[in-house]
């Protein structure tokens, strides 16, 4: 049944050519309560994610948080202890990887060394018993799409790392996969190439409308590419939300600290869901920790700063970031914070200047158990 529809889709894809499919054509994917243990360590602890057709979801988290395990379970390379993966509503848990119809791009270079770029891209089509001329035509189209048509006849060892990953992407897309799986495909590349490829992947993914699961530990990558980002920690999903939502409205202290730059300032819990830090009292957002000693978590743009004599801090650094300038301030009590100010207003904030830093009144903040430094 699955194989049948796949073949039909292949044929349709070839007839229509690539790039014709719009959004909405994609596949829905549902990860249902996945758990997986390796010995004593729990790699996944009840992970559930629902992906809409054509959506790009990034799984973001520190190494060992289970994001790669989740991806490998979807690909069929790992088996979940409990839980299931549903593709278009059908449980694929018992379908072997070779029959799942999922394109995958790996972290390490995975091209077959004995084949040219073109043959690599055509490999999946060959496995689907598509004729030689059609296969070459389609593989050529895909290489063209990733901008590597002139390299079609070259072997992997003649290509740079970035080119190899682009061929790998073309190869994964050639089979018109129901789901595209990206396992940190950019992490082996240098910064410039990474940025280009990031945009290329996103553009192609949107054009083809392929539902995509993307695993990364690079928050910038996740936030810039994904429709929604799932932040993982210890095998659990902390929060899954659109990038701006994740940044401005983090559900937990872990997310707040993991995504973007975050200041930690010692504070005191007050009755009635309030916390006091830097002389001001503001409401607490999210969960209240049990500990009495807490840190308040505030973004650089969430702090108010004025130049005053005998303030509570001394400016130590100043970094120009374009329209804003990030100012490093040493507060009394050995606390260092970063504060963003419009660049036009930060002329007086040179190192050594005395400033007064405070929380913005009325703005709720996250608190976390105090970190002893």
């Amino acid at each position, binding site marked *: 049944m699955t194989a049948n529809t796949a073949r039909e889709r292949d044929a349709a894809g070839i007839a229509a050519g690539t790039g014709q499919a719009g959004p909405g054509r994609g596949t829905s994917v549902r990860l249902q309560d996945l758990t997986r243990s390796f010995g004593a360590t729990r790699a996944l602890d009840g992970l559930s994610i629902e992906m809409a057709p054509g959506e790009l979801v990034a799984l973001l988290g520190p190494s060992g948080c289970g994001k790669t395990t989740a991806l490998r379970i979807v*690909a*069929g*390379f790992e088996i979940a202890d409990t839980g299931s993966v549903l593709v278009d509503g059908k449980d694929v848990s018992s379908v*072997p*990887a*070779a*029959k*799942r*119809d*999922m*394109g*995958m791009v*790996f972290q*390490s*270079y*995975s*091209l*077959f*060394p*004995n*084949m040219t770029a073109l043959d690599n891209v055509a*490999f*999946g089509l*060959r*496995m*689907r018993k598509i004729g030689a001329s059609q296969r070459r035509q389609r593989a050529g189209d895909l290489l063209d799409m990733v901008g590597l048509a002139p390299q079609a006849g070259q*072997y*992997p*060892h*003649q*290509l*740079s*790392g*970035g*080119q190899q990953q682009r061929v*790998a992407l073309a*190869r*994964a897309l050639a*089979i018109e996969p129901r789901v595209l*799986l990206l396992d940190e495909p950019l992490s*082996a*590349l*240098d*910064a*410039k*190439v990474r940025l280009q490829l990031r945009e290329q992947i996103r553009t192609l993914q949107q054009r083809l409308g392929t539902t995509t699961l993307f695993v990364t530990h690079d928050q910038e990558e996740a936030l810039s590419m994904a429709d929604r980002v799932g932040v993982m920690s210890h095998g659990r999903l902390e929060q899954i939300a659109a990038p701006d939502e994740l940044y401005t409205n983090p559900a937990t202290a872990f997310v707040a600290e993991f995504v973007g730059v975050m200041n930690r300032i010692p504070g005191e819990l007050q009755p009635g869901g309030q916390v006091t830090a830097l002389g001001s009292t503001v409401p607490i957002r999210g969960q209240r920790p049990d500990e009495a000693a807490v840190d308040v978590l505030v973004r650089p743009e969430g702090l108010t700063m004025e130049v005053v004599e005998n303030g509570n801090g001394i400016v130590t650094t100043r970094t120009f970031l374009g329209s804003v300038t990030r100012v490093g301030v040493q507060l009394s009590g050995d606390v260092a914070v970063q504060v963003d100010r419009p660049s036009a207003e930060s002329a007086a904030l040179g190192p050594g200047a005395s400033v007064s830093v405070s929380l913005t009144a009325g703005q709720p903040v996250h608190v976390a158990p105090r970190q002893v430094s």
Partner: protein
Amino acid sequence: MAAVTQTAPERIAPPPRPRIVFRGATAWRWTILIVAAVYFLLPLWAALRFAGISAFGSVISEPGFTSSLALSVRLAVITTLVTIALMLPTTVYVHLRLPRLRRLMEGITILPIVIPPVVLIVGVLAIAPGFLKGTSWLLALAYVVLAMPFTYRALDAGLRALDLKTIVEASNSLGAGWLSTLWRVLLPNLRTALLSATVLSVALVLGEFTMASLDLYQTFPVWIYVNSQTSGQVSVAASLLALFVTWIFLLGITVLGTRQSRKTGGGAVTLFTVARTETRGD
């Protein structure tokens, strides 16, 4: 990462290998080369003088020549094929699923080298089932044991040079089952290693004497020995001929393998290892 200052083109050339050059190294090199050449070539030249050119013509018409050579070639083919058929899936499986057993495998495969052939063949004869006795299969199976260490080592080196897990998973995700993966992806990439294994197995079988003579097979080396009792010149001519034919054969395999692997960035066929040129950028 110094990526900010990265202005180099995407293709990164491997750095040139550092060369250590001593003064007078050239003179030493030539001396060693000449000494080695004399050591190896002098006996050959002496043999050639002893046999005389005319002896080569009569070798072929000598009784037993054709049949013993045919037997040796047959044994070489059977041994090589059986060894590879046994060792290829085993080695791939160990690399992929049981990497911790690699050490144990190395230990096991060294055994045929350290156990003397005499001991091996006596053991084989003692336990061989009746229907195998007297057939060329019995000797071939004994040779498989002898060839196993070399084949394992060649395949092991070849597999180490590949990112096996990723390549197999990539192939799987593209819809290839196990057989297709082995046939279309792994075999072509292990070509160099397989050629190395073939070279070693063939050379081993064409030169083996102890087992064959103890088990009363008239393989080519045994025939040469037996013949040397009657006609010294002819047997020397035969062994020179055998040496030459083997040498051409091995050279052919090596050249063939190296040409292919140069195209795909693999290593040259060498007798004990498969060196692979690292070309991964970044």
